[in-house]
């Protein structure tokens, strides 16, 4: 494993409040969230239940709901919140600099 690096994912304005976008880096894919309070978070892109991208999901407050089967995760911690998901989602540190969103992966 290489040391974690900060990667520029998007501009702050690319993500609406209470929404999520997809960010691909190399062969990995992530979901970048903005909560209803305007805070940014990042996680692995795919739901832990079936391989379906969370960027098509619905953000409600600080919860992401998978579009496929409505499994839910806490955006801040990645904790699985509702069936059918039972495996937590991996999350990544996020920082904002000069209106750009960076994630540490």
């Amino acid at each position, binding site marked *: 494993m290489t040391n974690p690096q900060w990667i520029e994912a998007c501009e702050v304005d690319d993500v609406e409040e209470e929404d999520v976008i997809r960010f691909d880096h190399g062969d990995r894919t992530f979901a970048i969230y903005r909560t209803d309070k305007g805070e940014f978070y990042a996680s692995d892109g795919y739901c832990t239940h079936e391989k379906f991208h969370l960027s098509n999901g*619905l953000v409600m407050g600080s919860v992401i709901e998978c*579009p496929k089967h409505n499994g839910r995760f806490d955006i801040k911690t990645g904790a699985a919140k509702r069936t*059918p998901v039972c495996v937590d989602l991996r999350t990544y540190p996020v920082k904002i600099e000069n209106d750009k969103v960076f994630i540490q992966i």
Partner: protein
Amino acid sequence: MTDNGMVIVGAGEAGARAAVELRAQGYDGTITLIGDERHFPYERPPLSKQQLCEAEPPTPAVILAQEKLDALRIRLLSGDAASRIDRSRHIVQLASGREVPYSKLLLATGANPRRLTVQGDASEELHYLRKFDDAIAIRDKMKPGARVAVIGGGFIGLETAASAITRGCDVTLIEVGPRILMRGVPQQIAEMVEASHRKAGVSFAIGVMIERIDRDGEGFVVKLVDGSVIGCDLIIAGIGAVPETTLAEDSGLAIENGIQVDSHLMTSDPDIYAAGDCCSFPNPMYSNRRIRLEAWRNAQDQGTQAAINMLGITPVPYAALPWFWSDQYDQTLQVAGLADGASSTIERDLDEAGKLFFHLAEDGRLLSVSGMGPTGAFSKEMRLAEMLAEKQARIDAALLADPAVKLKALLRELD
């Protein structure tokens, strides 16, 4: 009073979720999960979809593997059916002779495929799809070029037809009703589904009864009352399901289109609950009308809710909007709520993301939403529409129809 533990009969979706929830709620006693299949609890939705058509031989989509059962201290008794409930002694008897005592019991016995009664010598050869082993048996015969007849234009029949086409089979779907998806799916969506199947190459025989089915060499011949004849190598019947109530009936529990439960999922015996496909319950979203659902999310939610209520922590009534989904090729269709009783339908065209249909009562209240489109963008809109339906609000039809008006904005206005 000594605690004899929590016992769950039926290790499907509802039963497995209940077992997990009992532990999640902090219950520390014995949890026993009894299932007649020789598999770990697994998800059924993929049986008619990926597991029929993917190139790799499938394995069950396991919900609770041994590691997790151990971690949660759930005792799984698989391959052994519950045969009797002794309510006075609070004991479940198994086919093997084993006896399991309970303090509270959950019946999550599911449903069985309805059997087709038909003239001819082939009725024993028909396939039905409910369990993993059923899917394997069907899959083995779904070889490229095989002629497949699917009887029944419901979700199971249509998903099986789509899988057979994907496998390179020659598929005919027979539906005796006037159209496919008669039960619970609006006509607009049924038409979209039928069109996608026709485009993929499925032949349809709709609105025609089957006269008889006979063996014909290695295969079969299905004769319809209009005189047409369909030769095939494999027949799958998906004509509905019957709730599994034998155990409940034999022990004298109240039955009404399934095991009768109250709004807390309690049966006529206060120490016995029921959840999932096997039970009928009053739905407060629709004037406490008694309904029974054969749906995945309902099984999960009722299993979870029953566990909470069995522990008597803060018993809550079960009040969820019924929700169904089906995958057809690269499209997903969803229905949220019950559309019967609707007097008008408003269409919202999402362009490439598909279509939504809002079904309104005479007084303008939103009763249910249905729609179909490619899974990604469609699902997001559909989910918002479902949340609107949960509120059963009166919303201006022009706003619902206008895709430029964001559903999230409409939802916020109701808060």
